[in-house]
């Protein structure tokens, strides 16, 4: 067991896979000489050379599509898109091609592609660089979307994504890169499509993913001091979505709050709430609450940005209200 940063865990996963499989190569803007905008690929160009760690021009559609084509011939490209905002430039290749090729051709061609890209706001990056649009990809059958919250999951899910024969989008998070956690030395690839109960509790279920799964644990600890015993479900995989784990928890706690960094209307939380309505209707003692980003283009000014981002305080307040709605504080 080693304590490692989220950034280092991702780096280690990439390096191990480059060592393990000759067909693995990295592609993306500034991943080689510049060593990555967020330094995930630091040192890999020097170790593996320009053939396997390939700097690309600023051409998301072109290089993402090229990675899809290379994957069709059996390579296992890992594409870095600098932030998820820029993935929109590659939307046609991801949605119309990567996600479709296996099914559209009757299973004849596989696309063992990984797209790594960070979401997240809170760095005063403004409207075009602070979005969380993972929903666009989680919406599409044929894609797999994972969203690790911890260093151990970052590594285990990255290993799984690279070894998977389908296109997998790995949602990283700017605010998580410097967080640390224990990573087992002999970590096995995770199973994509499984959520995790990261804290057991009896009073309320908190459903979250990526950064908000970390916030959820902090808030749960804070609320424990107030006598609220919260259970936290970290989705880990947005597609497929592990509905059973969510439902099992809500059937136990009888109420739920979803924390999400994306926009509320039509967001991931809407799908979670609908799932709970389907699977735990007769167990619900209160409506499902959602804590999400304010529905505005993200402003630059710090005061406005803080007002727009869901905070631990926002989450705690919503959870308190939900618990208060079903019972006096225990």
């Amino acid at each position, binding site marked *: 067991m080693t304590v490692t940063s989220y950034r280092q865990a991702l780096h280690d996963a990439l390096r191990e896979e480059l060592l393990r499989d000759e067909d693995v190569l990295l592609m993306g803007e500034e991943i080689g000489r510049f060593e990555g905008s967020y330094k995930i690929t630091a040192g890999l160009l020097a170790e593996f050379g320009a*053939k396997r760690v390939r700097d690309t021009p600023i051409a998301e559609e*072109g*290089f993402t599509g090229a990675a899809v084509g*290379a994957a*069709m*011939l059996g390579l296992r490209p890992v594409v870095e898109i600098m932030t998820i905002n820029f993935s929109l430039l590659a939307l046609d290749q991801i949605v119309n091609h990567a996600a479709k090729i296996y099914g559209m051709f009757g299973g004849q061609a596989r696309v063992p592609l990984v797209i790594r890209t960070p979401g997240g706001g809170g760095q005063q990056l403004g409207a075009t660089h602070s979005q969380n649009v993972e929903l666009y990809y989680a919406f599409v059958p044929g894609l797999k979307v994972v969203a690790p919250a911890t260093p151990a999951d970052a590594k285990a899910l990255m290993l799984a994504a690279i070894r998977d024969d*389908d296109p997998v989008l790995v949602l990283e998070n700017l605010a998580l890169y410097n967080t640390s956690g224990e990573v087992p030395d002999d970590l096995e690839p995770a199973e994509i499509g499984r959520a995790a109960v990261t804290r057991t509790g009896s009073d309320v279920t908190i459903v979250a993913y990526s950064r908000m799964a970390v916030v959820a644990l902090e808030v749960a600890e804070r609320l424990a001091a107030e006598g609220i015993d919260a259970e936290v479900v970290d989705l880990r995989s947005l597609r497929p979505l592990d509905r059973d784990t969510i439902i099992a928890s809500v059937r136990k706690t009888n109420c739920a709050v979803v924390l999400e960094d994306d926009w509320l209307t039509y967001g991931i939380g809407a799908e979670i709430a609908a799932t709970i309505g389907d699977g735990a209707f007769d167990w619900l003692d209160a409506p499902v609450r959602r804590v999400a980003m304010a529905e505005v283009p993200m402003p630059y000014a710090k005061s406005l940005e803080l007002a727009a981002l869901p905070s631990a305080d926002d989450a705690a307040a919503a959870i308190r209200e939900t618990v208060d709605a079903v019972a006096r504080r225990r």
Partner: protein
Amino acid sequence: MPRTTTSRTRPRSAPTAPAADDAPSAAQELAFYRQMVFIRRFEERAARAYTEARIGGYCHLNLGEEATVTGLMSALRAEDYVFTNYREHGYALARGIAPERIMAELYGRSDGVSKGWGGSMHLFDLEARFMGGYGIVGGQLPLATGAALAIDYRGGDEAVVCLMGDGTTNIGAFHESLNLAAIWKLPIVYVIVNNGLGMGTTVEEASAEPELHRRAAAYRMASARVDGNDPIAVREAAATALASARAGAPFLLEAVSGRLKGHSVVDPARYRSREEVEAARAADPIAGYAARLLESARLSEQQIADAERDADRAVAAAVAFAEASPHPDPETLFDYTYATPVPNDSRRRPGEALFLAMPAASTAASVNGATA
């Protein structure tokens, strides 16, 4: 995972296409002619099947493009890869895929090349290294570029041919792909089939540089323009382009071709004047090629009749096969979402409940567990 897409088994040779190495012999010229006629008959039969509602969706035909199809495909080696757009039946035929399986795909049947999942726009056959027809304009260019990258990565000497229409040269993916291929020196030939019309918009209206092959200059890429109605000229130009690509210099080839009918089977093409229609007919590549061969006595009336009879028979056989092929079983609906099975994959038909309603009798235990 097995490298399914890089299998080294050689595709069987296209049955009627000659090898590309030397100047064509009389036999090869006859074979060219017979292939062009066959493509023509196949496409005409597809148009009829569409009107009979045996074929659905969109259906774009290679009518008028047969010389380009035949010349290009004859220049390829068996191990080379082909990516096309959605106007691709002829290329699939010329690549040697059984016409029965192509027609079955147009019919949406389980014996189709894509098992009924693709339809007219999405033919695919790994054995023939026919890497797909693609329905999104420009979508195939980055993919083909990536296939060339994979060849280069592994040090192979295969090449990739990527077809597109004239309209595609205005889309971003065209420029991004040519740039990538040029900086990475990839073994790929981009082929523009310029039939003068992107749906109803002319090249002159749509492209600031209507001599489309010249766009390669922006990437310092070699390029050429060739008469797409002359299969021999196309074959020779393609051979030059492929040799360049294999040597690490990607190539942009423009074949100036024609479109005898509308953009698709449902397009009456009223935007064309009678003069333009007649000009297209006059430039019919099959009639022109036959005339040239007849003139030099390299083709006989009997051979023409035989070619047409054989084409009709082969097409009839393809239709019969397609008609007899079963419709895909609805039970297979979820068979091709993911190559690697994954837990919690949603396999629900429309209207199916996510969770079963609670059976009244079986709730008591869980209720107590949940509420105690």
